């Protein structure tokens, strides 16, 4: 690998990680198109690289969230049964599909993610309904308001079903799947967004690990590409979290939703 490619990978990973953190995405949705469209990395290798980046950012973020006690560890462990099963199936399936088909599927995924981003902008009124009559009670301190939020989990089978699908998409296309899990956990199960985001982030490392070894065994893990991109994404996501309070995320989300729609069309035509 040339020095220029290395710098491109590191910088691309950093940008994907930074904007991924600012937009509430894992980074994979932005990293894979960069690897495939800009650097010409084969699709399977791009997915494997993204999975490595997802494990790195999830592990680092989860350690921080566990310290802040925003993760509902029991709910996370329970839903991991669904995500891990889905991810193993996704990983096995992906390694039997052609790179072209995976690229088309990823194009569909980016299109869907862009639509979800636009939907979230229009439906985010800052109000949440918290249920206290469900199961698995949890609590966290909202440092913004200084209050302790108590909540319970409703419709656990629904959350489990969404987790299975999110895990499958993660194993198949190398993304964390938080973009599906977080709204579902919030809307279906009544988990506050802060706890849902932290718990989803906690889960995606294990979900990604569930398919990582399959990609490794199939020879899709290029050490130079994976290490450079993963380190870039890790540094970028830490930066993104730090600067997120200073950025007007609504306008940024609109811009990236449009960019993702364009990326989706480009990938489909590739």
């Amino acid at each position, binding site marked *: 690998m040339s020095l220029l490619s290395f710098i491109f990978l590191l910088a691309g990973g950093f940008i994907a990680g930074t904007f991924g953190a600012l937009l509430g995405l894992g980074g994979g949705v932005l990293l894979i198109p960069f690897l495939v469209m800009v650097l010409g990395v084969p699709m399977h290798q791009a997915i494997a690289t993204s999975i490595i980046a997802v494990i790195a950012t999830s592990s*680092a973020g989860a350690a921080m969230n566990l*310290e802040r006690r925003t993760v509902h560890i029991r709910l996370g462990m329970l839903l991991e*049964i669904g995500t891990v099963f889905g991810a193993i199936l996704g990983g096995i399936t992906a390694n039997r599909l052609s790179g072209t088909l995976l690229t088309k599927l990823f194009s569909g995924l980016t299109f869907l993610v862009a639509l979800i981003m636009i939907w979230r902008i229009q439906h985010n009124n800052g109000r949440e309904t918290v249920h206290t009559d469900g199961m698995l009670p949890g609590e966290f301190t909202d440092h913004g308001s200084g209050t302790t939020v108590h909540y319970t989990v409703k419709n656990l089978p629904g959350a489990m079903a969404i987790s299975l699908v999110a895990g499958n998409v993660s194993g198949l296309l190398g993304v964390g799947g938080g973009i599906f899990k977080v709204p579902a956990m919030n809307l279906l199960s009544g988990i506050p967004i802060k706890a849902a985001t932290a718990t989803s982030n906690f889960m995606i490392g294990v979900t990604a690990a569930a398919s990582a070894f399959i990609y490794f065994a199939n020879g899709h893990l290029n050490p130079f590409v994976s290490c450079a991109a993963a380190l870039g994404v890790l540094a970028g996501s830490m930066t993104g979290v730090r600067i997120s309070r200073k950025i007007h995320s609504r306008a940024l989300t609109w811009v990236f939703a449009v960019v993702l729609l364009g990326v989706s069309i480009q990938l489909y035509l590739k």
Partner: protein
Amino acid sequence: MAGSNYQSNDSPHTAERWTGVILRLGVWISASLMIAGLLVAALVPSSVVPLSANPSLSEVMNHLVSSSFDPVTLMFAGLIMLMLTPVLRVITAVFGFAREHDWRFVVVSIIVLLMLGGEILYSILLKG
């Protein structure tokens, strides 16, 4: 599981604390190995000795044990350490929940662990 008396965040948080430590350690160790591999490869390009196009887990481990610290082996070691970090996190959760006497979640964690173990075994068998 409705109505069962799960310990929430009021519990001693053993599982939370232990898994947090393991995740942090795993990321630091794997990132250090990856950075070391990339730095050596960039500074001493002649030291790059590819293991093989598609090395197995045991091949990487053998290289490490035999002190063949070439850049590619270091990078693969970092990647494998990173992939194992979530698995170690689940193992830690088993012990953390056991310490809290939350046996239901010991079982849940063991189920997740068995699935991950099965996947790793499948991958090793796939490599032959």
